[in-house]
């Protein structure tokens, strides 16, 4: 029997080229885009990265964390500490954010992994709150009211002068460009890493684990190791994103940096709207979210209420999100991970995404 296995589809080949084109466009965009567009894209890219990371641990790993703000917050504070206390340049200090989040994730996983389902969610949230309360005691970083990055630190960030000269921008705008490029790098890097993981042997194991923990162990999947790996990696990356976000705003407070609304609720909204458990989902979700945010965020609590209603509507009518709905109608996958067996050049059908139709 002649056996070939492929993951490629025609859509994915096209998507690969489009993605490369978009990345190239994204890189040169600051040459002609307005400052406000760059700022919008910074927001979109950082939220996209957070959403992809949450999708990885919840949508694939089955670990529904409501405590991701702990990693955003600790990452941001570690970056501030590096700059203010130890005189680091903000860009390398972002790496401190990743390290700090990684270290926080170890005890967090240790406790939370003992909990199941809703208790896991609540557990992660409680740990994030505790972290916020502890950080609020850190007087040299402004305690409960927070602090700003000192002018000296923000005025000569690595690369800003070069960018300012290159594009003929003022310092503040050049800082935005730098932050945007870093956000682009993080978003692309995160998605590439997740995609590579999903296409590896461990990607199969992760999905197997999510679908049936007991059966996954019974075919030899090391559930514990894989969960640790994914949780810690996602935490470290989330810490980097948090540090980057607060490098851009240059002002921090515990309430903002550890906000469950900003860094977890919105992120869950993005993933649920777009489609959980698929890489395309957060991309669609973040665009919808950004559109809503731009159009309606002036309406305050009515806006939040509307977000909630939209999320409920999507969960009821398209439980696999907007992308999931689209994919089940068309069979299109931009980032396919499904291994399709082709025997003797025959058999098989279209990529199957019909799961939600079958009960």
């Amino acid at each position, binding site marked *: 029997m002649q056996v070939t296995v492929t993951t490629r589809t025609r859509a994915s080949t096209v998507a690969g080229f489009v993605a490369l084109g978009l990345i190239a466009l994204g890189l040169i965009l600051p040459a002609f885009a307005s400052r406000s567009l760059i700022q919008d894209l910074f927001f979109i890219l950082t939220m996209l990265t957070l959403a992809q990371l949450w999708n990885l641990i919840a949508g694939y790993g089955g670990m529904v964390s409501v405590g991701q703000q702990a990693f955003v917050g600790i990452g941001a504070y570690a970056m501030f500490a590096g700059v203010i206390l130890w005189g680091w340049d903000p860009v390398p200090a972002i790496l401190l954010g990743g390290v700090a989040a990684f270290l926080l994730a170890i005890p967090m996983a240790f406790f939370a992994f003992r909990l199941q389902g809703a208790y896991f969610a609540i557990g992660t949230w409680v740990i994030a709150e505790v972290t916020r309360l502890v950080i609020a005691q850190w007087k040299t970083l402004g305690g409960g009211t927070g602090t700003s990055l000192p002018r000296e630190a923000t005025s000569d960030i690595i690369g800003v002068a070069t960018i300012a000269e290159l594009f003929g921008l003022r310092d503040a705008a050049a800082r935005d460009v730098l932050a945007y490029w870093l956000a682009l790098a993080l978003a692309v890097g995160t998605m590439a890493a997740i995609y590579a993981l999903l296409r590896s042997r461990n990607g199969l194991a992760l*999905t*197997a684990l999510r679908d049936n923990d007991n059966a996954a162990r019974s075919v030899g999947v090391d559930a514990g190791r894989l969960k640790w790996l994914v949780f810690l990696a996602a935490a470290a990356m989330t810490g980097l994103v948090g540090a980057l976000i607060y490098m851009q705003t240059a002002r921090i407070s515990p309430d903002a940096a550890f906000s469950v609304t900003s860094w977890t609720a919105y992120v869950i909204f993005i993933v649920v709207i777009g489609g959980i458990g698929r890489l395309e989902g957060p991309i669609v979700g973040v665009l919808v979210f950004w559109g809503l945010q731009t159009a309606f965020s002036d309406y305050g609590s009515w806006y939040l209420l509307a977000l909630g209603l939209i999320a409920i509507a999507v969960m009821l009518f398209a439980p696999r999100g907007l992308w999931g709905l689209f994919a089940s109608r068309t069979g299109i996958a931009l980032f396919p991970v499904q291994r399709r*067996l082709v025997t003797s050049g025959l058999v098989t059908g279209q990529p*199957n995404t019909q799961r939600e139709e079958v009960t």
Partner: protein
Amino acid sequence: MTPPVTVLDLANVSKSFGALKVTDDVSFSVPKGQALGIIGPNGAGKSTLFNLITGNILADTGRVTFLDQDVTRTPAMTRVRMGVGRSFQIPQPFEGLTVFENLLTAAAFGQAKREAEVEAECAQILADTELLRRANDLAGSLSLLDRKRLEMARAMATGPELLLLDEIAGGLTEGECQALVATIQALHAKGTTIIWIEHVLHALTSVVERLLVLDFGKVIGIGAPDQIMASREVREIYLGLEV
């Protein structure tokens, strides 16, 4: 001649769920290459016995030995890598993966190999278990019958030295049943040690050379199938319940 290798040995294994003793001082061993059938009424503790052998649940007392290694407290994940493959009575497919991917996962992790090394073998198993036509369908979309086939196929993909099959023949037509028996016989002929729990007796007895009867968690008989089926105790407890 070297003495026959013992693949599996249970010594005084017991397990209780609360006050209910589901496995009661069970001892038996299975030599390499044997096909052992297990019968017994509903709730006798057959599936629990499998769980104790695979490590999905751990024994309260007693010892489980696999290929001369004490695995009594070894987790399921490790036992399957050592060569204990199993199917679940109630199918537990990975619904978000395709049928082929279900096997790939089992083969890659159960045999600790790279995907590319096991692809051809998985395709062959799909062909042998009549699942090739569904290879690229999500396991969540399968009918119950195909889910049962997948259970068997996935267990085979782990590359087991000892294969545990839990009620896989129920609901098959006569022709399908014969095909299943042929598949199991082929595995048996290759030297795989098999333990098969089955209510469909004619299928079971056409494969196994030894039969174990379980009732209320106790082994009440073990031996050649015709002898076991002829014993009065078994006829009363087991067959009495069938009619």
